[in-house]
């Protein structure tokens, strides 16, 4: 109990006269005894099972977000690297790289294709991560709605919002 951690009378003596401190310490101890006489109800086994399952789910979502963040970071490095390469060097070099890497780099459809490919990689990583989680933790399968919810949470990560 808390009063084991500190000497109650000594502490009270700093604020009260000796006899008042003694009385206050006794009041506090008898109050504690009263609290012990009436124990509060215990959480039910169902509640604890439910909490454990919520905690597992939260942990899985956090793992998933970490994977998505890592993949997104790698993808961002590639995209930025490509852009740096494209914009660096003289006009002649730029033309060569332009032709060699992506003929219509600034074409909207090409950007959309690239974005779709990155999204595809992210989705694949998510599905791999979910499969791994099932195997490692022996967690029952998600239904479709739950899986979609997880993906939606992961994909709406701050990175994607820019």
């Amino acid at each position, binding site marked *: *109990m*808390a009063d084991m*951690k*500190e000497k109650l009378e000594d*502490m*009270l003596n*700093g*604020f009260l006269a000796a006899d008042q401190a003694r009385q*206050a310490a006794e*009041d*506090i101890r*008898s*109050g*504690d005894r*009263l*609290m*012990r*006489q*009436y*124990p*509060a*109800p*215990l*959480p*039910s086994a169902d*509640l*604890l099972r*439910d*909490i*454990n399952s*919520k*905690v*597992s789910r*939260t*942990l899985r979502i*956090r*793992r998933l977000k970490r994977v998505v963040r890592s993949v997104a970071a790698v993808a961002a490095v590639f995209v930025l690297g490509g852009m740096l390469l494209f914009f660096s060097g003289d006009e002649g070099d730029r033309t060569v790289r332009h032709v060699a890497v992506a003929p219509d780099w600034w074409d909207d459809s090409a950007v959309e294709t690239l974005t779709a490919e990155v999204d595809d990689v992210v989705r694949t990583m998510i599905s791999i991560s979910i499969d791994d989680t099932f195997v490692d*933790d022996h967690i029952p399968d998600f239904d479709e709605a739950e899986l979609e919810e997880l993906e939606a949470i992961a994909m709406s990560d701050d990175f994607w919002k820019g």
Partner: protein
Amino acid sequence: MSTTGKIDNPEKLNEIIAGCQNGDNRAFTQLIDAYSTRCYGYFYRLTGNTGVSDDLLSRLFVRLVEKIGSFKGGSFEKWLFTIASNIFNDYLRHEYRQRKLLEAHAEQLAEETPRRRSDDEMADRLQQQIAKLDDDTAELITLRFYGELSFKELSELRGEPIGTTLSKVHRGLRKLRELMGAQDG
């Protein structure tokens, strides 16, 4: 007081916390086993309602998963019960807003909303008397008892001088004893 699964060994507790910080599911289960009884008691004594206490306990452990990375050592109990206290106060604010909203629409409806500390059929004598204390005192007493916090930890948690905390707990427990005595008489 029942302290099911209590972790008395500080090294063991540190090991479990490190496991939780690494996202280990089993470590969280151990932490839940160790602290659910006391945290539940804390919520129950403040709300007097098992349904609400169930909900607040769930919220506490989910928030623990989100926050465990920010625990940098020191008293884990003080840290845990600070989160529990924040959750309880969030709940109070939410309920206050809801009640205000209902009152604005219809007085009759407002009367039908659940009271913060309902004297439900399950409530024991102590619960009924704790409900008569002011919110601040009731929280201090329950925080100290279920959190097993020292007065120093309690005053730090509350951000008030230790003398103030001592005085409030003393007066609160004496009042509680008087209320229990009056009921006996």
